[in-house]
């Protein structure tokens, strides 16, 4: 992990540096070629004007020596020319030629060049004289050779100052570019950075957070959208897992209570009776409690085993007349309902289903028992069979009892679930009844549906999905 983190440049940083480098490179190339070009042009222009000037000097000299009387006159003239032009910064050297065209001599006075100058063979030529750049033109005439040199070192200076100027301008522009580009690119990459920090926050626990789907370029926006979709999926999976885990924990807690309570009584009383004295009456009371708690454990284990057995085996399937089941179960609870002052009403019908008669009877009994328990004196419990809208046979128990809350309804068929969180024994059982009912329904392909209103009553319907009329 550490290696990857070691300074991987971000995209925008890379873009920035590359753009800047490219720009600087281009600017330097342009500056140098422009300067070079300008310099060359200048040199050519100087060359032109130098040529013209040299021609003029040579022509003047010829004109002036046309009517020359003596050598002395010529020497003086030469000296005058040299001196005059030297004042204008131009070096001249006159070479006399004899009648064969050979160079004969040049006097010191006929030259304003430095003494150790080596004259070039070609013309024109750029050469340094006394460290300064000069254009040197060698003009061969009939009687003389004129070497002309003009100081063009100023061109070099101009070039240098041009380059410096260009360089400064380039630098200034680069700096401006550097700033501007930095901010522009930063701003462009901001949405990405935000996305990253959102992800960071979510991973450290802020679950409801989502990425902003509006900001940024097209790619960033579509990344944000996908990102959010992924989070939604993950969130719903987490919720599901948490719900499952909570259900398992509830199951364990409730089972624990159902087992530990009778065990505490049995163990506690037995231990007490061995360790202390008590009256005969007390002893009988305690023994009675031990017996009844043992029975509770026995019943509990039987229901648990029934449930386990049911899940493993496929019960018998025969044609069962619903009438028979209804009347049998109602008969069983007739007295209990009457004692409580609850009216138990059974409606007859002529429907039948394929199911295990015994299991169906257990199922219906459980539902009727719950209904009677939940209904106060003066209330009503009705048992009836009929047809659903889609033609399926259904068997239902409804009561005018205390009802079940929406939250509770979600968990009601979980094993050991009790609406009464204290799990008191007075009105309720172990909480396994409805889970067993659910298993029984599953075994003959029926669906069990609840609807309830707190304070008004509950309806439970068993819908035999395989039986259509």
């Amino acid at each position, binding site marked *: 992990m550490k290696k990857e983190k070691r300074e991987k440049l971000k995209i925008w940083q890379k873009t920035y540096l590359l753009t800047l480098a490219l720009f600087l490179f281009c600017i330097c190339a342009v500056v140098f070629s422009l300067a070079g070009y300008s310099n060359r042009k200048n040199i050519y222009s100087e060359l032109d004007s130098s040529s013209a000037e040299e021609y003029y000097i040579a022509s003047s000299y010829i004109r002036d020596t046309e009517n020359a009387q003596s050598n002395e006159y010529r020497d003086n003239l030469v000296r005058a020319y040299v001196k005059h032009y030297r004042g204008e910064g131009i070096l001249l050297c006159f070479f006399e030629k004899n009648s064969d065209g050979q160079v004969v001599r040049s006097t010191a006075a006929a030259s304003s060049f430095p003494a150790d100058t080596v004259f070039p063979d070609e013309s024109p030529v750029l050469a340094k004289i006394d460290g300064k750049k000069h254009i040197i033109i060698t003009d061969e005439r009939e009687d003389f050779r004129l070497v002309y040199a003009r100081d063009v070192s100023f061109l070099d200076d101009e070039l240098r100052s041009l380059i410096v100027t260009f360089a400064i301008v380039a630098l200034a522009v680069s700096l401006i570019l550097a700033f501007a580009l930095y901010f522009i690119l930063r701003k462009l990459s901001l949405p990405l950075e935000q996305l990253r920090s959102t992800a960071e926050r979510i991973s450290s626990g802020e679950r409801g957070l989502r990425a902003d789907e509006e900001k940024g370029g097209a790619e960033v926006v579509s990344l944000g959208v996908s990102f959010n979709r992924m989070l939604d999926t993950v969130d719903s999976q987490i919720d599901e897992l948490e719900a499952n885990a909570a259900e398992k924990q509830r199951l364990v807690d409730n089972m624990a209570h159902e087992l*530990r309570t009778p065990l505490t009584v049995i163990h506690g009383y037995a231990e007490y009776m061995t360790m202390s004295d008590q009256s005969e009456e007390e002893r009988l009371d305690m023994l009675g409690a031990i017996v009844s708690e043992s029975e509770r454990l026995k019943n509990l284990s039987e229901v648990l085993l029934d449930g386990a057995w049911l899940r493993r085996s496929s019960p018998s399937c025969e044609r069962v007349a619903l009438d028979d089941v209804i009347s049998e179960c109602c008969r069983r609870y007739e007295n209990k309902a009457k004692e409580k002052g609850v009216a138990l009403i059974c409606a007859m019908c002529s429907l039948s289903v394929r199911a295990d008669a015994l299991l169906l009877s257990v199922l219906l009994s459980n539902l009727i028992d719950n209904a009677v328990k939940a209904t106060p004196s003066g209330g009503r419990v009705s048992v009836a069979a009929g047809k659903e809208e889609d033609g399926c046979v259904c068997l239902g128990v409804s009561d005018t009892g205390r009802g079940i809350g929406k939250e509770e309804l979600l968990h009601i068929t979980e094993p050991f679930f009790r609406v009464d969180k204290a799990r008191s024994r007075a009105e309720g059982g172990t909480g396994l009844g409805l889970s067993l009912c659910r298993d029984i329904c599953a075994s003959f392909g029926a669906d069990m549906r609840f609807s309830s209103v707190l304070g008004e009553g509950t309806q439970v319907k068993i819908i035999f999905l395989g039986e259509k009329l």
Partner: protein
Amino acid sequence: MAKILIVEDEKNIRELLKKNLSTVGHICTTTGDGRDAKSILSDDPGFDLLIFDVMLPGNDGFELLDFAKTTISPPPPVIFVTAKTSLDDRLRGLRYGADDYIMKPFEILELIARVDVVLRRYGKSANVEQFDDISIDFVSRKVLRGGVEVPLKPKEYALLEVLVRNRNFALSRDKLLSLVWGYDYEGDERTVDVHIQQLRMKLGLHNRIKTVYKIGYRFEM
């Protein structure tokens, strides 16, 4: 001899707790309902210890704990008794402010010992026990008979203390051996018999320390 309120909705368990604690001399009031408990506490704030089940109809034990600790001054100690034994539940109970947490099912001796410890912590346990002409000082571990100190060997004193603190309960030799001499003791149960004899003789407790047939010994008071 503490005044204890027991709140537990299972009748049998309620009775069990009451019997056990009464036997060793505590005075117990019981109720099966959280609301009832609140009104009892409001009328009589003089309880030395409160024992609650965590799962009660109406209110739950935590609510009751809050009530007791905030409305009574000074707040009395509270012990939770419950079938919820997961680590999370235990931690929750203790962190919430309970002074101890007993899990069901429990053993009589454990219940008595835990109640004792909590009472001692709160200074509601007597430092001196007196009966007949005997006076036992639990703090200095000295026993006086008729005002005169009776020298007892350390194990003799320890045995006496165990018997007195668990009075009226018959304790087996095996149990006495492990409580007084420790689980690792390789000795004989007859060691217990010998020490009992010594106690009886030195302190004249022939009528107090009774031999219980087939079980062990019981200190009666």
